[in-house]
């Protein structure tokens, strides 16, 4: 009896939430945790095309939608680089994708991306979502926006969506490192505790 009440109320909540979200221009469209993420072929700052399939040894990917011009993305630059340094060797490299329309945000064009990557010493691919086809498939809405993928037989499965940690302002005051915790869980073969988080970010410029 109790169980059925729980199920009914859970259903009611799902219906309620979907009723509110459906007419919101599909804010929540794109991948949910558990979905298989598409591969892509996007131009890196070195001019070469990069696909997830190129990384034969990888166990998965930390895909970060980010850019040069968003203060939140800038605040996380060093932490994204640190993620790559820590996890690329363990099989989870960072793949950064710049999703903005560079006509609207010239500060995010390929030359600016190259300059930024050089200045900050990025060791991860920094790709341009030319034509802006990839970010809508993932459902990214802002920068920075992380999708943690794990290679499975079915393809690259989405394991975590959201923020890098719980304090954009002050790295020293971070209490929850969402992405690190999620990757550590995957590496240990454990269940990820927080699979989805939210953070303020800059809307992707279309």
């Amino acid at each position, binding site marked *: 009896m109790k169980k059925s009440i729980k199920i009914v109320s859970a259903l009611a909540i799902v219906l309620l*939430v979907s009723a*509110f*979200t459906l007419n*919101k*221009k599909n*804010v*929540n469209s794109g991948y949910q945790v558990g979905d298989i993420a598409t591969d892509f072929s996007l131009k890196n700052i070195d001019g070469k095309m990069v696909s997830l399939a190129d990384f034969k040894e990888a166990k998965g990917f930390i895909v970060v939608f980010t850019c040069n011009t*968003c*203060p939140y993305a800038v605040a996380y630059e060093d932490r994204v680089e640190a993620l790559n340094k820590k996890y690329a060797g363990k099989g989870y490299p960072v793949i950064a994708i710049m999703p903005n329309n560079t006509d*609207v*945000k010239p500060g995010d064009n390929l030359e600016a991306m190259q300059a930024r990557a050089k200045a900050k010493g990025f060791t991860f691919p920094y790709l341009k979502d030319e034509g802006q086809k990839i970010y809508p498939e993932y459902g990214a*809405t*802002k920068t920075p*926006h992380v999708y943690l993928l794990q290679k499975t037989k079915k393809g690259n499965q989405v394991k975590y969506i*959201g*923020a890098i940690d*719980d*304090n*954009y*302002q*002050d790295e020293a*005051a971070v209490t*929850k490192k*969402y992405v690190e915790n999620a990757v550590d869980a995957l590496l240990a073969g454990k269940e990820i505790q927080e699979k989805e*988080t*939210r*953070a*303020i*970010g*800059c*809307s*992707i*410029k279309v």
Partner: protein
Amino acid sequence: MVLKKYKNQIKVLLNKSYTYYIMYNFIVMDLRILFIVFFVVVSCKQESKVQEVSSNLVHENALKEKPNVDVYNFDAFEKFLNSTDDKVYVINFWATWCAPCIKELPHFEEINKTYKDKNVEVLLVSLDFPKQYEKKLIPFIEKHQLQSKVVALNDPDSNTWIPKVSEAWSGALPATIIYNKDKREFYEKSFSYEELKMEVNKFIK
């Protein structure tokens, strides 16, 4: 339990302290101006009273024009999302660095102006970084002579409070809530004036 309670209070106090700091600056400025006025009055006693009054007036105007921005953590801010009076509240989350926010800001100002007598109140919630309050936010408010009320929300743990604003919000800026005591709508989008007017009209009886 008690500790936690105090912790929250300290958090609120810390947030308030910034406001006090700004107020303190005003008072210091105030004193300086008073000192100058005093000096002028003392050094030229023969000056007419009219001049003294006018300098006081200038001083008052200067105080009025310098915008004051209250800073809130989410717990303290939440009351703005839950007013139960008869007004329609239009709450816009923005930041000075957010280009689409700046673009739509005049529309919110226009709503604030033209719908005032229809019991509509606009609140602009800045998510600028605290270190930008003095450098960017306050100069921006001054430059554009914003008439709507502006507050700053400073709460880095956004994963906790974003869903409390709206379950539909991914966290991207700009975002807007329109509500009255009966209903509420959330919009993670940019508005044209026509669109915004249309949405606000849905809340006006």
